[in-house]
């Protein structure tokens, strides 16, 4: 077991543990903070998996912007206390657990479904990064082969901004 594998499992455990805590905590505030821990651990996993640029984006966009938005809304609505029990009753819990269990069994078969060896290039990302640099290896295709989806994303974000303002404003 080399160092990379050890780091991977430490932060995988951290991500899973804080994920469970995020789902089970009663207070939305505690939930949000545990979700931040999950996202930071996932950023570490991304670094281990040769995705340094995406790891930076994960910290900036998810742990930074999106979670701050969540915390803003929680504090704005004064929900930090976690008023009363908000878990479903016994029936709801059982149905939820059974459905999640079925999904888990289905996903378990994917663990061993590696893509065929002929299309796999060992260390493809590491080689790309040595050729084009960490940012360049992602930015190059983004502005080349994926240019149209990239532009459509900007339209989507504009629509989301306008929609959020329209929805949240008291009177237009």
């Amino acid at each position, binding site marked *: 077991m080399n160092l990379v594998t050890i780091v991977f499992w430490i932060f995988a455990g951290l991500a*899973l543990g804080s994920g469970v805590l995020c*789902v089970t905590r009663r207070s939305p505030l505690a939930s949000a903070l545990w979700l931040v821990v999950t996202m930071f651990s996932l950023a570490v996993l991304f670094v281990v998996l040769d995705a340094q640029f995406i790891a930076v*984006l994960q910290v900036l966009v*998810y742990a930074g*912007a999106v979670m701050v*938005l969540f915390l803003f809304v929680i504090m704005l609505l004064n929900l930090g206390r976690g008023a009363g029990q908000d878990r479903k009753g016994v029936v709801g819990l059982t149905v939820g657990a059974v459905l999640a269990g079925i999904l888990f069994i289905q996903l378990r078969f994917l*663990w061993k479904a590696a893509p065929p060896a002929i299309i796999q290039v*060992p260390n*493809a990302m590491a080689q790309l990064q040595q050729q084009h640099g960490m940012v360049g290896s992602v930015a190059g295709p983004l502005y080349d082969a994926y240019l149209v989806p990239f532009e459509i994303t900007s339209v989507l974000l504009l629509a989301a901004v306008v929609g959020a303002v329209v929805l*949240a404003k008291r009177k237009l």
Partner: protein
Amino acid sequence: MLLGPSLAVAAVLFVIGVLGVLIRRNAIIIFMCVELMLNAVNLTFIAFAQSLGVGGQIFVFFVMAVAAAEAAVGLAIVLAIYRHKETVDLRNINILKG
């Protein structure tokens, strides 16, 4: 190669998110569980990108953009509902139930 372990972690994380959506009633916590599921899928993409090329990482970029848009609009909806009903408990938000 950490492809297998990464897929396992992503699957467990996704199921945790699904469980959260199914058993909680607080709209904001359900939103956070959806974000958790999106993150699990991102981990899958990144794990495959390690040996299959950069396409997976580009997709994660787009997923992040969509997730940010979704969070903004979703939280605006929660805000509007709270102003109307004074609660974010889904038991009291059932206009569309019929």
